[in-house]
């Protein structure tokens, strides 16, 4: 029984898992720059995996998942600031709980919206939360929190690796389970899915809660590693848009897509950085434009495209006016 289209190309999945395992050994290089870079890739991959559940599998394109990441960083920072807790596992669990709670509370009304309106609602939530948090004194208000990292700094790398691996495993299990098919059914045609017995609200909210848990966990680990958290950092636009670009680049609605996208985007960003320090953001914009124009369905999606190179040529310009 083939895995079918829902988990994405099998070979690419095996290679990506291979790369993920390889990434686990980066701290042994004792080069804190590679460690920081690797932790960045794992963080963005986790955020992209989280977004992929609601945006990729369920087809509800959220432009505000950073709200769960941001609240995750603040949960971890508050644990240190008020209770002097540095335990990463505790921070991750609390951050996931906060994320899931918010997703459940907001999910029912917000997930009734569709398309652009859902996108705007989630973006609105992220921006409003950023400003509200910046006015709450208990959360450090405008001046933010300084968080004392653990002595064993590589612990943050391994924690992020575990969070990323767990998210990818969860995505794989979901994709093969009944839940995965319910989500894809909603994405393909919500009314037809309801006729077949899939309760749209229940499964959409579940998807968003899973999404929130992954983003929250990534936020909790990031807070410790980054040592300083304020509202603009926690709710940065990058953590909203990069995960989506990465999922697109790697292949929306696949298991391996997000990590592949994270690797490629970071590689592009790094090479641009070191060689064109002044105009790398400009190149980055150009890269996004080109990718979206010629690879609308993403690389991994391409690998199981029906029709090989002919399929590739067909997909270019498939959406022409």
């Amino acid at each position: 029984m083939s895995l079918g289209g829902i988990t994405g190309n099998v070979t690419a999945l095996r290679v990506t898992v291979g790369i993920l395992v390889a990434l686990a050994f980066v701290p042994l290089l004792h080069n804190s720059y590679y460690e920081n870079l690797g932790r960045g890739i794992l963080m963005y991959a986790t955020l992209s995996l989280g977004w992929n559940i609601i945006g990729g599998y369920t087809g509800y394109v959220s432009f505000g998942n950073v709200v769960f990441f941001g609240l995750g960083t603040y949960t971890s920072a508050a644990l240190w600031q008020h209770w002097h807790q540095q335990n990463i596992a505790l921070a991750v669990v609390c951050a996931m709980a906060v994320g899931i709670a918010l997703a459940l509370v907001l999910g029912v009304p917000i997930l009734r919206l569709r398309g652009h309106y859902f996108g705007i609602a989630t973006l609105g939530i992220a921006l409003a939360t950023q400003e509200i948090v910046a006015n709450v004194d208990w959360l450090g208000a405008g001046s933010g929190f300084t968080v004392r990292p653990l002595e064993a700094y590589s612990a943050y790398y391994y924690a992020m690796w575990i969070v990323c691996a767990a998210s990818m495993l969860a995505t794989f299990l979901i994709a093969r389970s009944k839940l995965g098919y319910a989500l894809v059914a909603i994405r393909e045609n919500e009314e037809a899915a309801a006729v077949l017995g899939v309760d749209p609200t229940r499964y959409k909210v579940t998807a968003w809660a899973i999404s929130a848990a992954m983003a929250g966990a990534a936020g909790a680990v990031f807070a410790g590693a980054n040592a300083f958290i304020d509202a603009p950092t926690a709710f940065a636009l990058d953590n909203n848009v990069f995960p989506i670009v990465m999922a697109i680049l790697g292949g929306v609605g696949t298991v391996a897509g997000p990590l592949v996208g994270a690797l490629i985007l970071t590689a592009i960003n790094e090479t641009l950085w070191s060689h064109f320090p002044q105009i790398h953001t400009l190149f980055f914009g150009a890269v996004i434009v080109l990718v979206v124009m010629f690879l609308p369905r993403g690389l991994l999606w391409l690998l199981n495209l029906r029709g090989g190179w002919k399929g590739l040529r067909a997909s270019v310009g498939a959406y022409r006016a």
Partner: protein
Amino acid sequence: MSEFLSIENVAMYFGGLHALDDVSFDVGRGAVLGLIGPNGSGKTTLMNVISGVYKPTYGSVRFNGKRIADVPTYAVCHLGIARTFQVVKPFANLTVRENVAVGAMYGRNGHNRGAHASFERAQELLEIVGLARVAGRWASDLTIPDRKRLEVAKALALDPEVLLLDEVMAGLHATEVDEALELLRTVNGRGVTLIVVEHLMKAIASISTTVVVLAEGKKIAEGAPAEVLASPTVIEAYLGTRYAERQRDVQP
């Protein structure tokens, strides 16, 4: 008043438009009810009322003794009622087997079926409807007749007691119609009650145990197919008064 499925004085008003007006009839367990009537006679509206999509303005639908109020769409199949759509709605980016599997997973007894069991159930159903050969293909690559078969298979995956078929045979040529009729007989043979909405009188006549005729939202005839199809009121409703008059003059 059969205990299985009964339509009691159902009326459905959309503002001023009376789509259905005081329609009542019963459907016995295992029966095949042909529902016919010219376009705009309220057939699809009635299907929506029976499948709980619309809540009737007056009257009610009773199934297994229970009144179907405005049941949310996803809960309808759990009552045992499944339906196909005139406009076919496959999940394009899933394979044919996966399309049917979704029904098996979330239908009436989907809860006690794992993903694997659902795939096996789907394969069985594909064999029944004759789509086993394309099980692994993407749903969007199917021909029109195959898409209609897929629609039936997905409905059957919900383990229904009653299956509503909305113009499943429209657009099929002669041999495909016979194959479809054959399929419906096997499905009915397995104990599934059918309500068939079609315009092909030949198909309706050959498959239905009883026939109900709607015109402008009212029930104008009910009974055995041969008798109903020959009655002048039905012909007049379908083909207009002038044709009916000429029929009367010609008859000896």
